């Protein structure tokens, strides 16, 4: 029996705008206590002050700014309005995911956000895509790393799949959205070296919507041409003509799939959804998805749901799928506004529900636990990385690759002489250095087909 305490309701106040309210507070108090030591702080503040707010469509300058504002709030740099300031201390940073969720549903102006055209036609340079356009965990750990026991992300992934018993002899493997091909190449090389009996009998299919990325995957895995094949297409619509797979890998790709905006009133007030959304509405009803905790307008990862449902056809009995993406168990899709496109985080609670409804067994965890990252390994923190990459290195006409740099890898890339001239670089454990490098940000859903 638990101890009883009288019901307590605390109150807080926020400004109801489609943008994070902390910024509005900041606007009203230019004499905030923030120490403007960091070039990124200066950039973000000047952006906000110039614009008077976030820009008209609610865009932040870049996705990491969300984290920065969050950090300011954590440090009480931003003032909080409301009647019970002390009582609400800490509530607004906690509420931040809800604000981002609310803001994101308004960011989508039509009834859906679809990146098919972007993937088919716009992506032109695989390296630039993952160095400058978007950040993925697999790219940040694409080389052997002490946090992964001196393996790369792809190698470690193969090792874990084998230990879990989902990579077996004769495996027909499908990787959808394989990026630059680094992951697949490392996966295959690791299997070849460590489990030659499996390598000799497997087949690995790369499937991608982007012809440019598919070509990169082909080039990157030339050493494995006897066991690989490549297919271009839209996974949601593609007809596999009865082909089945024993292991499906969806590594950091489902945030690129279609989101749709729905209204709570479709489900609770019998408001009729528009004709173009009837299919989605019926699908959600059939799955038994419950949206009672949502805002009146909300987004769903409909593309990811439909892909999971599609897996029921293309996964062999006894097969498994590993789905990796950033998101949370109970946060509706939130926008990650990148330079060239916008992605949406995954509501893993919904995804898991759809997977179970589709008949899959499910196992949920985060990448820290799935790949067994070592938490004590220190990497360059986000501020130091930005300062080096955006300001210091360009001054000397050099680049710095996007990577979860340890002190050693940084010395290797930058050179000991140059590094010894840079003061104040900060290194922190992988879970504290930067949200985008933190494996806990990325969740894993392993599906098993009976």
């Amino acid at each position, binding site marked *: *029996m*638990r*101890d*009883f*305490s*009288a*019901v*307590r*309701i*605390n*109150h*807080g*106040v*926020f*400004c*109801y*705008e*489609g943008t994070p309210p902390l910024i509005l507070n900041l606007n009203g108090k230019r004499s905030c206590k923030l120490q403007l030591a960091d070039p990124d702080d200066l950039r973000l503040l000047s952006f906000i002050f110039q614009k008077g707010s976030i820009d008209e469509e609610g865009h932040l300058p870049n996705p990491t700014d969300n984290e920065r504002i969050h950090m300011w709030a954590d440090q009480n740099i931003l003032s909080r*309005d409301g009647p019970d300031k002390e009582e609400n201390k800490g*509530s607004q940073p*906690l*509420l931040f*995911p*809800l604000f981002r969720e*609310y803001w994101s549903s308004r960011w989508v102006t039509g009834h859906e956000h679809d990146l098919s055209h972007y993937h088919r036609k716009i992506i032109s340079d695989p390296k630039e895509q993952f160095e400058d356009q978007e950040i993925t965990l697999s790219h940040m750990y694409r080389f052997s790393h002490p946090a992964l026991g001196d393996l790369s992300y792809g190698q470690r992934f193969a090792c874990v799949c084998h230990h879990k018993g989902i990579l077996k002899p004769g495996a027909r493997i499908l990787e959808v959205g394989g990026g630059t091909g680094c992951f697949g190449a490392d996966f295959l090389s690791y299997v070849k070296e460590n489990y030659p009996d499996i390598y000799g009998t497997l087949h690995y299919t790369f499937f991608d919507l982007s012809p440019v990325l598919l070509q990169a995957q082909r080039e990157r895995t030339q050493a494995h041409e006897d066991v690989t094949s490549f297919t271009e297409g839209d996974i949601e619509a593609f007809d596999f003509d009865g082909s089945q797979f024993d292991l499906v890998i969806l590594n950091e790709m489902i945030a690129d799939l279609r989101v749709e905006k729905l209204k*709570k*009133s479709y489900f*609770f*007030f019998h408001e009729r959804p528009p004709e173009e959304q009837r299919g989605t509405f019926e699908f959600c009803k059939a799955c038994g998805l419950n949206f*009672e*905790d*949502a*805002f*009146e307008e909300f987004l769903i990862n409909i593309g990811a749901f439909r892909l999971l449902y599609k897996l029921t056809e293309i996964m062999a009995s006894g097969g498994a799928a590993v789905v990796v993406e950033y998101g949370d168990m*109970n*946060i509706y899709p939130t926008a990650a506004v990148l330079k060239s496109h916008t992605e949406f985080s995954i509501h893993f609670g919904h995804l898991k529900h759809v997977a179970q409804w589709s008949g899959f067994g499910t196992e949920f965890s985060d990448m820290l636990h799935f790949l067994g990252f070592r938490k004590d390994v220190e990497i360059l923190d986000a501020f130091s990385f930005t300062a080096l990459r955006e300001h210091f290195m360009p001054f000397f006409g050099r680049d710095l690759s996007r990577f979860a740099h340890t002190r050693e890898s940084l010395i290797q890339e930058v050179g000991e002489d140059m590094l010894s001239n840079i003061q104040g670089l900060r290194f922190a454990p992988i879970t504290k250095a930067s949200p985008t490098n933190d494996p806990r940000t990325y969740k894993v859903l392993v599906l098993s087909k009976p």
Partner: protein
Amino acid sequence: MKPLFSCVYKKSFRCAFRELEGTFFIVPTGDMKPGDQAVFYTLNEVGRDIWKRLDGHKSLGEIASELLELYDVDPEQLLMDVEDFISDMEAKAVVERVDISGG
């Protein structure tokens, strides 16, 4: 007048609610315009346990009975607390009474 403990309530669809890192939030969303200030509420554990049971079917008395299985508390005190909570939440328009008269 019908005693409160026999009444049935449901969560208003004009609010969002979520548990974030162990804190339970309710955010009313009805009739808000951009720029308005709005209130959010956080509930303690007992409040959250009541909230989760507001399904539009269970009466407050039934909810109190379920909570008696969970908490070491005097039944009368618990029922009084549940009723106070609901009155407060109804005033804040985040719960709605369900008409189960059948008429």
